[in-house]
């Protein structure tokens, strides 16, 4: 079955409005749409496959550093987005063709209460392993946008870890596929040493999850190279 995808023009319109409002530089795009920006703006990643996702995930580093306050809901309302709240109080903006999810790094176990981001007028969901993902985020330019995305090595390692924590088999498989795709490209570049250093510096439990993910895949070369002593 072909996976659905949000129309790129809608994704770009939303990000463009955030850029014009001066808030895009204070968030990090995470999730599958990152692959689009790697392909478009990071050397060596032109061979990545097209993005297939109806979700756009935005991570807000905490504490948020917005210079001005913008209502994200108002910013995209005329495009047809409306607010949907989960029972736990998390908020997302939904549309027939895409959803926007808002995330923040979890600060300690159990701090999973909705996090109010005044600068955007939203509540975000705390998630684990987020610091690994957003530290040293890079800025990628494409189509008039300058979008902050995770370093490819961090993105790949993070996807390996969360592929082992997913409840849904299909999402886990998608995470693993994307991790392998990004890490395979990276393994042919000088930056691979950085990926190995990052992997080596991860907590033991995280390394075990990443290793387990690769052991269950058909990428023995990546497994050997990443976990070589």
């Amino acid at each position, binding site marked *: *079955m072909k996976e*659905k995808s949000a129309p790129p023009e809608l994704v770009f319109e939303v990000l463009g409005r955030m850029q014009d409002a001066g808030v895009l530089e204070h968030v990090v795009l995470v999730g599958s749409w990152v692959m689009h920006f790697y392909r478009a703006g990071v050397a060596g990643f032109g061979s990545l496959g097209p993005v297939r996702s109806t979700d756009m995930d935005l991570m807000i580093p905490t504490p948020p550093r917005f210079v001005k306050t913008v209502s994200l809901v108002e910013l995209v*309302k*005329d*495009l*047809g987005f*409306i607010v*949907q709240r989960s029972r736990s109080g998390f908020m997302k903006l*939904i*549309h*027939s*063709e895409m959803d926007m999810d808002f995330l923040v790094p979890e600060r300690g176990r159990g701090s999973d209460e909705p996090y109010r981001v005044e600068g955007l007028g939203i509540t975000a969901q705390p998630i684990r392993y987020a610091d690994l993902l957003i530290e040293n985020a890079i800025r990628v330019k494409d189509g008039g946008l300058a979008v902050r995305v995770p370093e490819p090595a961090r993105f790949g390692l993070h996807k390996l870890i969360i592929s082992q924590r997913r409840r*849904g*088999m*299909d999402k886990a498989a998608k995470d693993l596929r994307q991790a392998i795709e990004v890490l395979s490209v990276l393994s042919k570049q000088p930056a691979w040493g950085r990926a190995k250093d990052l992997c080596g510096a991860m907590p033991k439990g995280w390394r075990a999850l990443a290793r387990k993910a690769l052991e269950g895949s058909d990428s023995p070369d990546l497994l050997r190279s990443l976990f070589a002593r």
Partner: protein
Amino acid sequence: MRIRANPVRGVLREELANAIRKLASFERASRAQPRGSLVEKRIRGRSFFYLAYREGGKVRFEYKGKLKPEEVARFQEAKKLRARYRGILADLRHQIAYLKKALHERKVGAA
């Protein structure tokens, strides 16, 4: 014989549940918008407004009188949003119909 869960069906079911949830949210959002369109009438150089809407198959005109520009803008914005939501609701209904069709189970024992 034990039937193994089909992961594709799982994805489709999840998508269907999501589309149904979205449809309910957009129906609520659409109902929350003020109904009708503003009709402007100029009498001796002054603008007066009526709110035109359908009720029981008839078009009704509700007198609104003079309105401030921001009130006029609010009605115009609501009209645009209702049109946007109509398109989105149509998309969602289409998605739901497609997913239901894709999930339709073959009858056991059918040739």
